[in-house]
């Protein structure tokens, strides 16, 4: 049984379970205490000291995030001594800071900036102790690191180690020289960083940002000789609104399409189309592996693991290179899209592939890196020219002065713009699994998956690792070797949970046939390119929007998407896993070091 304690916060009594921090107790009492190093996704650090409060009888102020409330405490959260102390601390942070709000990407979405505004702090109180000659690290395709805007809250460090188990960034040096650094202070592109961008969405300031490409895109749009196509990932439509003053969980698909047309893209297409295509290829690959294992008794790498999350792909390349055979060889939907844009699509509309600029909008920072992987040139050109984040698209819409709220809904352009509800699911953890099962089960049995409304609830939600199984019964004759097989699957999101799955595989104890892994907590809706803040409450709202989008679709299975049927007929006549598919839609992986 839980013990309860009662305390007084700003003259209000509040009762909370023992072990509750003062900060949480204050939230319960509807008292807001400012924070900076605190992030609900992460363990408590207690280092910024912004959240200090006065506890009667205590010699010093008390950090409310890191101190458990105790019975009978009398707390003042906004007394003059508290406010003065906070103001002083903010002034100190400003004195160490390269304050450039006029040009800063995080301006108006920056926790330091809003604290300084709230406490009316200017930069005249103290001398500047900003280190001279801080170089911005732009070595990575995905992440920019500008130490001159770092408040040393260590949220990034905790993210990279607690959520992602990567530990690419750590704290180096002490005292005045303390900073966030990498192994041996190497540039980000030379260390184990998997470009997931989770550190970016957990950073309170402009110290960590995605590398931005929108200037290049404006240029391409303005170039009459270029045909610029854009495609947007499933999870962008449920989050973009947040960058444009909508509440979390609001779907803005139609307005988003309209805005992109207004921005001047020549064609507005949908990554969901290639998500459906991924299901066709990946589902077939799974079945092929199962056939080899069950019918031909061949030694084949199982479980098969999904490969659409480039942060995850780089993680396994670094951490478990001996298990690369378990990865599906399918490219991610973004890369399938890029290849097809410069082959299938280019041919159909009669534009030379070298004149096509293909842009994708992703919830992700790692997609930028993925687009630049040297092997991603199956079309003969760089398949994806630029990957934008949800945030960058929001920024472009603002830059163009578009009144987003007033836009009329529009539809994606055709040929690679249609999609099923299954494709939309890709945006949430468990979605690839659900989409794949909807198709695989039907291929094998000729019947739809035996779940109400096709909804596979066991794959949904924010639980760390989800597992389920589905019995294959009444198989078609060509799949009779799977009769009675219990297809076991698991879903993990966040690389920490991926590690648990991988350790199981390493010990040869994995009971699964197919595993979906996404690098980011919550899947793509919680991706490193999504609006800031992202936390569990917001993740849940975005996820709910994904499922609503799926349910609102007429077609809910990838193999029933008419444009999918058409592309296999017109362009990939050998069907999934055919020679052409292999050349264009599948890839290979690279073993990497662990540091």
């Amino acid at each position, binding site marked *: 049984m839980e013990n309860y304690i009662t305390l007084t916060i700003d003259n209000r009594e509040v009762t909370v379970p023992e072990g509750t921090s003062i900060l949480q107790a204050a939230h319960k009492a509807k008292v807001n205490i400012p924070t900076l190093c605190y992030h609900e996704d992460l363990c408590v650090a207690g*280092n910024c000291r912004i959240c200090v409060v006065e506890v009667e009888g205590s010699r010093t*102020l008390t950090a409310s995030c890191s101190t458990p409330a105790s019975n009978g405490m009398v707390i003042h959260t906004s007394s003059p001594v508290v406010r003065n*102390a906070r103001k*002083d601390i903010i002034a100190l942070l400003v004195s160490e800071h390269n304050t450039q709000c006029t040009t800063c990407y995080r301006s108006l979405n920056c926790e330091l900036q809003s604290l300084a505004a709230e406490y009316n702090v200017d930069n005249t109180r103290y*001398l500047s102790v900003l280190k001279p000659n801080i170089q911005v690290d732009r070595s990575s395709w995905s992440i920019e690191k500008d130490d001159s805007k770092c408040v040393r809250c260590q949220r990034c460090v905790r993210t990279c180690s607690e959520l992602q188990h990567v530990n690419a960034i750590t*704290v180096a040096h002490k005292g005045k020289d303390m900073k966030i650094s990498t192994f041996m202070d190497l540039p980000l592109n030379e260390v184990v960083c998997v470009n997931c961008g989770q550190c970016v969405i957990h950073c309170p300031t402009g110290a960590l940002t995605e590398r931005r490409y929108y200037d290049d895109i404006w240029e391409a749009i303005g170039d009459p000789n270029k045909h610029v196509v854009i495609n947007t990932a499933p999870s962008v439509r449920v989050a973009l609104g947040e960058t444009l003053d909508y509440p979390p969980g609001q779907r803005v698909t139609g307005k988003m399409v309209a805005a992109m047309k207004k921005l001047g893209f020549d064609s507005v297409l949908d990554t969901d189309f290639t998500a459906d295509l991924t299901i066709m290829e990946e589902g077939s690959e799974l079945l092929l592996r199962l056939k080899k294992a069950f019918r031909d008794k061949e030694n084949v790498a199982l479980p098969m693991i999904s490969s659409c999350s480039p942060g995850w792909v780089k993680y396994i390349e670094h951490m478990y290179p001996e298990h690369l055979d378990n990865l599906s060889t399918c490219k991610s939907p973004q890369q399938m899209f890029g290849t097809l844009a410069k082959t299938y699509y280019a041919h159909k509309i009669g534009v030379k592939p070298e004149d096509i600029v293909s842009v994708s909008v992703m919830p992700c920072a790692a997609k930028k890196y993925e687009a630049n992987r040297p092997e991603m040139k199956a079309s003969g050109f760089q398949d994806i020219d630029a990957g934008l984040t949800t945030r960058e698209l929001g920024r472009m819409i603002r830059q163009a002065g578009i009144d987003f709220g007033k836009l009329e809904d529009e539809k994606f352009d055709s040929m690679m713009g249609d999609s099923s509800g299954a494709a939309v699911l890709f945006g949430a953890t468990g979605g690839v699994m659900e989409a794949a099962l909807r198709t695989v089960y039907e291929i094998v049995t000729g019947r739809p998956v035996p779940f109400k409304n096709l909804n596979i609830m066991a794959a949904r939600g924010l639980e760390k690792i989800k597992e389920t199984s589905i019995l294959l019964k009444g198989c078609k004759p060509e799949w009779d070797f799977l009769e009675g097989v219990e297809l076991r699957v698991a879903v993990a999101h966040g690389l920490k949970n991926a590690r648990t799955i991988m350790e199981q595989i390493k010990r040869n104890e994995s009971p699964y046939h197919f595993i979906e892994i996404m690098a980011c907590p919550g899947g793509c809706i919680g991706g490193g390119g999504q609006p800031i803040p992202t936390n569990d409450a917001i993740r849940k709202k975005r996820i709910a929007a994904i499922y609503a989008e799926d349910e609102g679709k007429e077609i809910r299975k990838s193999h029933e998407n008419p444009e999918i049927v058409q592309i296999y007929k017109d362009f990939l006549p050998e069907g999934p896993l055919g020679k052409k598919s292999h050349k264009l839609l599948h890839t290979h992986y690279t073993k990497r070091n662990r540091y």
Partner: protein
Amino acid sequence: MKLSLKKVDLILGSYSNEEYKILFEMLSRNSDEILKDLIESGLKGRGGAGFPTGLKWKLCAEAVSDDKYIICNADEGEPGTFKDREILDRVPKRVLAGMALAAKVTGAAKGYIYLRAEYSFLVNKLQKELEEFHKILKSNNIKFNVEIFMGCGAYICGEETALLQSMEGKRGEPRNKPPFPTTTGYLGKPTVVNNVETLVSAFMVCRIGPEEFKKLGIQGSSGSKLFSVSGDTPKPGIYDLEFGLSLAEFVDEFGDGDTKAVQVGGASGFCVPRKKFNETTIGYRGGLTGDSLPTGGSMMLFNSSRSMYNILRNYLDFFAEESCGQCTPCRIGCQQLKNGIEAVKKGEKDPEYLNQLLKLSDTMKITSKCGLGQSVANSFSSIVTNFTEEMIY
């Protein structure tokens, strides 16, 4: 209240080969009795913070866990202290005896000596001592094993939770408290961290009894303490002095006739100017009239040839380097104080700026995460307010 300066010889004196024999006599007593003696004696930690030792052991004893640890803090990094080195060199058996007592009382089976990296020359000697110690423990059927852990060279690692972090192979950064080490210490297990001298004192309390011990010192600060005397003095060195001595007497004894200030407690302690020698006594705070100053044992005398500005700037330099850097008030505050006094000295800032800096040091005192940042204000405000002219001209 005038107290006379009494030299005693409790910690280092009458050391013999009988130490372990005496220890075993004590170990045959029951734990509650030992604890009672300790609490009765009023012994407080000698590492600087002055936490009651008996209570610390009691809290750890009450914590429920299969594994508990006793850690001897021999990181001795406070500028101007060198008494722990002396203790480990001259009376190591007593340190180990203190650890064994703590182990008995708390139920710990494992101990560590966290030894300052610069003291590696002591390792051989300590290893030999440990061999003997373990042999004797074994023959008496006592399960307690002590290892030496070499420190990492950072001053902050002397802070008990940073010390634990560094022992766990992590970055030496102080942890949030609570939880305290007595419940959540090394590897998350209940742990007693005691200063070298505290452990010896605890052993001596049990040896001479709390009554005898309390005859030394004054109310609230019982016993005697080793002081590391340095600076402008004809007789620098280690002295075992009774608590409650007045600074005036101290300066009479150790000064060179021209003492203008004494820094009590090292860089994180207080600077006392000549005019306050009479009203200042040395002991833990509370229960005394006038100023009473706690100290880890460092007493540094300055004569009139010294520039208090330079002294303060050196301290601030030290803190700006040795802060772990994790928390805002300490990391940036130390730099601001240092740059600030430099700017005032150079005339780039008005003398009034010193008031802003004094306020800042107050903020650091009440908002910093650990004792380092909290105590920078001690030397800063005592030097700046008592020697304001020296800061400006």
